[in-house]
């Protein structure tokens, strides 16, 4: 009852954040120098007469007062009709939905991998805290966290694709190859391997650190002593009491990472020429494709908000103390 009201209050806060973010999403493209004219008109914008230029601008709705454009943007959000890409003339929904699955594939797989590995290693490290193993893995993780993403990705390409020729270096599928069924799945997996590997490797440390920290603090709790006093085997204490409880805050970290990972794939998608949302946004930004920019920003904004919401609502659900 109270929790639900609290939830509603949170939702209200999110709504405010969303409105501000959407407004900024609208403003940012227009604040950026350069104009999308070249895009709308094709490259030879310079050869157009001023009248033609005006016509083009009007056609894209860019001559309207900003307020009107802003309201139009809201309308498009509310009606889920985001218009067309200046560059491609394709509806935004189509573009975004076309790219979304790839980004999801990367982020979710990487999250699953890094989540599992990070949690397992983190718990183990805390369990053996102060040991050689703990120090070793801890420093290794901190080192990983300090590795530049793009650099690792490029080294992977140089190693696995160019030198060894084991894995494809770009794209999500083999272009032009008409694959189906298992062959297609294998093809997709092959293409996703390097980006996922890079993403996972680099997200493990955050999960690891969170889990290690969380486990350490749980290990100091009185109820762990109670469990030991019951004569439980260390494994049982670890699994049923320590890990189970330590996982609670880590789920929040994972949920938040999901939102973050979503927007954080830009670099990876660029390095691996992977057709995800991050690259769509990057290209749109470089070209000032306003509708695509707004569309992708909105997706990222909503993803982060949803992740926050998920984190906010997941924790109380998992923790009986806050469950009503």
């Amino acid at each position, binding site marked *: 009852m109270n929790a639900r009201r609290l939830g509603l209050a949170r939702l209200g806060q999110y709504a405010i954040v969303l409105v501000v*973010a959407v407004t900024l999403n609208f403003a*940012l493209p227009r604040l950026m120098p350069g104009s999308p004219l070249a895009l709308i008109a094709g490259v030879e914008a310079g050869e157009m007469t001023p009248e033609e230029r005006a016509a083009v601008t009007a056609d894209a709705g860019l001559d309207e007062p900003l307020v009107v454009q802003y309201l139009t943007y809201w309308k498009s959000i509310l009606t889920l009709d985001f218009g067309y890409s200046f560059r491609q003339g394709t509806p935004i929904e189509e573009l975004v939905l076309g790219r979304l699955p790839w980004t999801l594939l990367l982020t979710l797989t990487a999250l699953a991998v890094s989540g599992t590995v990070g949690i397992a290693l983190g718990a183990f490290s805390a369990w053996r*805290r102060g040991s050689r193993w703990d120090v070793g893995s801890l420093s290794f993780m901190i080192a990983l*966290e300090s590795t530049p993403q793009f650099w690792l990705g490029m080294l992977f390409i*140089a190693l696995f694709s160019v030198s060894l020729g084991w894995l494809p270096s770009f794209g999500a599928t083999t272009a032009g190859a008409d694959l189906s069924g298992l062959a297609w799945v294998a093809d997709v997996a092959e293409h996703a391997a390097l980006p996922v590997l890079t993403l996972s490797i680099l997200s493990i440390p955050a999960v690891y650190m969170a889990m290690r920290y969380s486990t350490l603090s749980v290990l*100091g709790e009185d109820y762990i002593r109670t469990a030991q006093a019951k004569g439980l085997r260390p494994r049982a204490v670890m699994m049923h009491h320590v890990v189970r409880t330590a996982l609670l805050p880590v789920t929040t970290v994972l949920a938040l990472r999901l939102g973050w990972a979503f927007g954080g794939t830009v670099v990876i998608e660029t390095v691996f020429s992977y057709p995800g949302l991050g690259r769509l946004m990057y290209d749109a930004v470089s070209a000032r494709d306003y509708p695509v*920019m707004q569309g992708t920003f909105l997706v990222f904004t909503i993803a982060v908000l949803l992740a*926050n919401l998920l984190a906010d609502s997941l924790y109380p659900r998992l923790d009986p103390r806050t469950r009503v």
Partner: protein
Amino acid sequence: MTARVITESAPEPQIVLRRSRVSGDRTRVLGVIGAVIVLALGTVAVLAPVLAPYDPTERAGTPFSPPSAEHLLGTNDVGQDLLSEMIYGTRVSLTVGIVAAAAAMVLGTVVGLIGGYFPRLGAVAMRGVDVVLILPFLPLLIVLAAYLGRSIVNTVIIIAILIWAPTARVIRSQVLSLAKRDYIVAARSMGAGHGYVIRRHVLPKTLLLAIGEFVAATSGAILLESSLSFLGLGDPLQESWGSTLYWAQARGAFLTPAWKWWVLPPGLLIMLSALGFALLGYALEQRINPRLRRS
């Protein structure tokens, strides 16, 4: 009823159980390693003109030459000495990292402090933090870069703007818990105003935390600087490790044998410096964070 006597002569089994594991937390070593790395890099940065064999802007050799006696790490695409570039790059990377992190800490601390101490205002401030955290940062970057122009100062500003928000959160939660402490209630009950309480009781504690955050953030800032330079969003004309990588990538070094002397060293240096600060930050957190200090 029972009573008990001590029979002096009773042969008592005397067992000594030695502690099974060394309790000295080995993770302390990490802080020392971090400090050594940071100090070493700091020294290199300060002594760059002495240490570097060439002026990094000088065309000192044949472009694209592999390592040799004159150029230990070879030369880049315009014949500049890569080793000198690495040495001078330490200056830029460390400066950008430290200054940006410091700026972010100041901003984050102020917002977090106010946000935590005045809960109503804090709720508003935190919504602001939320917004910053969810904004797509690429366009934000370009907008900022366009308005500010590209320079090392602006890179610093951009990074600071990107990383202050999480700090504000951390500081706020600390201040929130501090504000409930008995000694603050005590001060309030003695008639202390907000200014006094913040100055005397909240700020000192928070600063300690902010210092820990700062060191950790420096690591992030160094990484960000390299990413920005690499993506061409920083200033590729500045001699930083990131821009060395930018040139390496732009001139195809990743795919030639040159990667060994052109790509690996800056990447490793970025990693090393970020690692140094991260380790230091970890060690500091262990000392500062009371939750971690227990047992």
